[in-house]
Structure formats: C-alpha cells, structure tokens
C-alpha cells in the first residue's frame, strides 16, 4: 500500500463567542497502490484541494491519519518531512503561478534538484536544466525567460518535469489541465501517461473533468461537500453509479 488516508477531517472555526465551524473535509478514507492512478472527482469547493494540502503537509488535519509507505505523515517532524517530500510531488492548477515570478525558468526548473543536493555546481545545474527542457520539448533559450513570458502549456509541462526530477513515488495532480485549452490538455496528459508507464509513477489525479478521469484513472472516488460519497473502479462507478450525487454528476457530463 503506497498511501492510506484514514478518516481525515479538517474543520475551520471562526468567531470567538458564537463559534461557527466549517467542515472542509469530513471523515475521508481511501487507499492507493504503488503505480496506480487514482482519480478524485467532485464539484468546486468540495474539499479536493484541502485533501491534497493535507497529504503534502501544508495543512494539518484536525483528525485522522495519513500513512505513506507505513509512516504517519501527520506525526512527522520537520527533518523527516524533507525526506518524505521528495517522494510526494505535486502539480498545481495554475501553471504560471507555480513559479516564483522573480526567478527565471532556469532557476525554477532546477530548484527541486538543488534543494535535495542532486546538483551542486553551476555546470551541473545548467546541464540538468537543458536536459529537462529537452524532455518537454522546449528550447534552451527559454531558460532565460520569466514565468509570465512562457505559455500556460509550457509552464505546466515544466512544473510536471521539475516535480519528476526528484523521482517521486507519488505525483499529486491538482486539476493539472483545467486552465489549459484542449490541444494542450492532450499534451499534458500524454506526458503524464508516458511517465506513468516509464517510471511506474503513482498519481492522485484530481479533476472535475469526467472525460479525462474516465480515460486516465483505474479507480476513482467521488466527493461531495467534504465527504467521499462513492468509490470504486472507473468502470463500475461510471456505468453503474449508486449515489444520487454521482448520478447527477454523470448526467450533467452526458448532456454536455
């Protein structure tokens, strides 16, 4: 078992006298195997991104535990986190906003590797940068540019390739294609697919694009209002939905 999410909840409290509690995520459980592509679908604001942030350690769950290769991520110390982070990488929704606006592409794409001491000298960094650019089909002179000067598709390919430069075991894709147009989406998906095949990379694929999920994932969980309402293999869930919300979701997709 690569990742086990056990009964995690996240709530936000506001107000001092009259406390209001918002349950962003409630009692969510799912498991992922090595090398599996697991889909997480659901409407906007249903808590998908909160889950990814908790797995990445950017948010602390109010309750529950997250086991990654048997280690409980909610109880890790700071130093231990640094090791684990190498194995769990993420691709965010807004490609251009993933990069430091004040840093060049060269700086951005070699940053993870240099953080973990994989490249030390300037020459090694430059070589790595050129290698990565080649892998995603960009030219070397784009290394001098700033994030806002390249296109969304290019930026997203770069953010994938820079996450993969650490050789992670799990890649969390938080709506990686939702901001891109259809032709670019296909490029991104084929890049992910090929990396999945080559490296046996497991992916937690979060999306509200059902078509992509259907063609891409092996198992899927459907979320609504902070809970997982239904999960199973893609075939089962898509051909024979049980929960009312899943039916509604699928119906809207069919009409579309």
């Amino acid at each position, binding site marked *: 078992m690569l990742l086990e999410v056990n009964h995690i909840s996240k709530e936000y409290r506001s107000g001092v006298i009259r406390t209001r509690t918002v349950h962003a995520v409630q009692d969510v459980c799912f498991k992922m195997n090595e090398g599996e592509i697991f889909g997480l679908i659901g409407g906007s604001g249903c808590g998908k991104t909160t889950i990814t942030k908790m797995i*990445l350690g950017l948010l602390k769950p109010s309750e529950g535990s997250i086991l990654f290769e048997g280690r409980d991520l909610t109880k890790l110390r700071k130093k231990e986190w640094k090791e684990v982070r*190498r194995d769990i990488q993420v691709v965010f929704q807004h490609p251009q906003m*993933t990069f*430091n606006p004040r840093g060049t592409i060269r700086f951005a794409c070699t940053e993870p590797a240099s953080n973990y001491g994989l490249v030390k000298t300037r020459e090694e960094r430059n070589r790595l940068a050129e290698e990565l650019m080649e892998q995603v089909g960009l030219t070397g002179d784009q290394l001098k540019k700033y994030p806002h000067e390249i296109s969304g598709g290019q930026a997203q390919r770069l953010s994938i390739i820079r996450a993969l430069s*650490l050789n992670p075991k799990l890649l969390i894709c938080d709506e990686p294609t939702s901001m891109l147009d259809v032709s670019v989406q296909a490029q991104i998906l084929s890049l992910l697919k090929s990396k999945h095949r080559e490296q046996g990379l497991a992916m937690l694929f979060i999306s509200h694009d059902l078509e992509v999920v259907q063609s891409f994932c092996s198992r899927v969980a459907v979320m609504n209002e902070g809970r997982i309402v239904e999960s199973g293999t893609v075939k089962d869930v898509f051909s024979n939905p049980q929960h009312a919300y899943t039916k509604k979701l699928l119906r809207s997709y069919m009409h579309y």
Partner: protein
Amino acid sequence: MRQIRNFFNMLNRKNVILILGILITGCMLLIVIFAPHLEMYDPTKMSLEDKFIPPCREHWFGTDHMGRDILSRVIEGSRVSLTTAVAVVLVSAALGTGIGLVSGFFGGFMDMILMRLVDVLLAFPTIVFALAISTLLGTGQGNLIIAICCVQWVRYARIARGEAILLKNAEYIEAAKAIGCSNLQLLAKYFFPNVISKILIMVSLDIGSIILYCASLSFLGLGAQPPSPDWGVMISDGKNYMQYAPWMTLFPGLAIAVSALGFNMMGDGIRDLLDPRMREAVQSE
C-alpha cells in the same frame, strides 16, 4: 536614433519629474564625490578680517561670522548631510525589512509583540521620538544615525510584513514548500525579491524627509558638532545673524531644500514607473 526617439517619448508629464529628480540627485552625487576639488577655500579655515562678506565674486555665497567661505562649507556639508541620510535609510530599511519579513512569515506570538511595538513607535511623531532618543544617547553624528534608525525602521517593517502575509498564501509559495525549500530559502529566494521593489520605492521617497530630520536635529545641536560643516549646523550658526547676514542661513537652507526635492521627485517618479496601474497611465498620455 530610435533609442533617442524612445527617450523623448518617455519624456511626458510624469517622467519629467523622474528625470529632473535623477538629474538633481546625480548632481548631488557628483558634488559629494568631487567635493575637495570644487571647494575654492578650506571650509574650516577661519579668518576674522573676512567675516560677513556678502555674496561677491571671490565668495559666491558670502562668508560667515568666522570668515569661512559658505560655498565651500555647503559643498563640504553635502558629504556630511547626504551620507548621514543615506546611511540612516539603508540601515533602517535593512533592519525593518528583515524584521517585517520574519514577523509576517512566522506569524504567531512574536508577530503580535513586534507589531504592537511598531504601533507604539508609529504613534509618536518621528521627529519627537528621534529627539528623545538622541538626547538620551548624547550628541554626535553616530548617535544621530542610531536615533533616527530607531524610529524609521518601523515604516519598512510594516510594509514588509504586509507583503509577506500576502505572499504567504500565494500558490508558488506552497509549490516551493512542496519541492522542499527550507524556511530560510523561502525568505531569501521568494519573499525578499518580491518585497524589495516596494522597499526601494519607500527608500527613495524617504531620503528627502530623512535629510530634513538630520538637518533639524543638527540644528538643535544634537548631530554633527560645530566645526564640522553640516547644513543643519550652518543654519543654526546663521540664525543669530539673520538680519545683517541672511546668506549664512539662505544657502545651506537652499541646499537642504534642493536635495530633499531631488530625492522626492526621483522617488515619485520611480513609484509611478513601477506601479503597473500608473505605468499604463503614463504610457497612454
């Protein structure tokens, strides 16, 4: 040729201010650097038979009550006054930015304490507080710098903290954490470069008022001490002879006014240039 035309296209209403500001501060800088070569007389040499000479061909700005040449003293004074002002701004900007960034980045209890301290310091008028501190520390140029820095850093801390809190929730900061950046790396590579442009604008806007603060404190006898030709000290010396030797206060006063104006114009211009909304307004004019 095209570059020249572009330069003149830039010269519209708002950029005139920037260019004038740069010209004035540039001239000031040249005067500071080449001060010993520009002075016609020794700025501290007294000759009592030459005292109170009004502006004439030998002494362009006249002489003071000890027969010292005022033009030479104003030129020499630029070194004292301007270097003090620049030192104050640099030290307080560095200190304030550092404290503000750390405070905003880590938040929590320390942030609360620091920000209450900032609130207290901001409640007093700058000059009053600086006056109190420099009385406490005693006279002298070094103490003057410390005193003004003690008050001035809070302005930068405020700005830096606000920016840090805004940045903290940016997606690229979370992305940076996910790729294993340490807190120190985040502060140095992400927060600092994103804050520095705002701080630079503040610095260029503040130098003008710092020049005034330094001069006021020196005028009150808390900064540079008499033989040293500081502008504030010169005005202070001249105030007793205002009726029959107004040039003694007029010229150092003008020097303060022009340099403060120059820095302020440059600061305004830079702010307009760097603020994206302003930039569009400048270009469409």
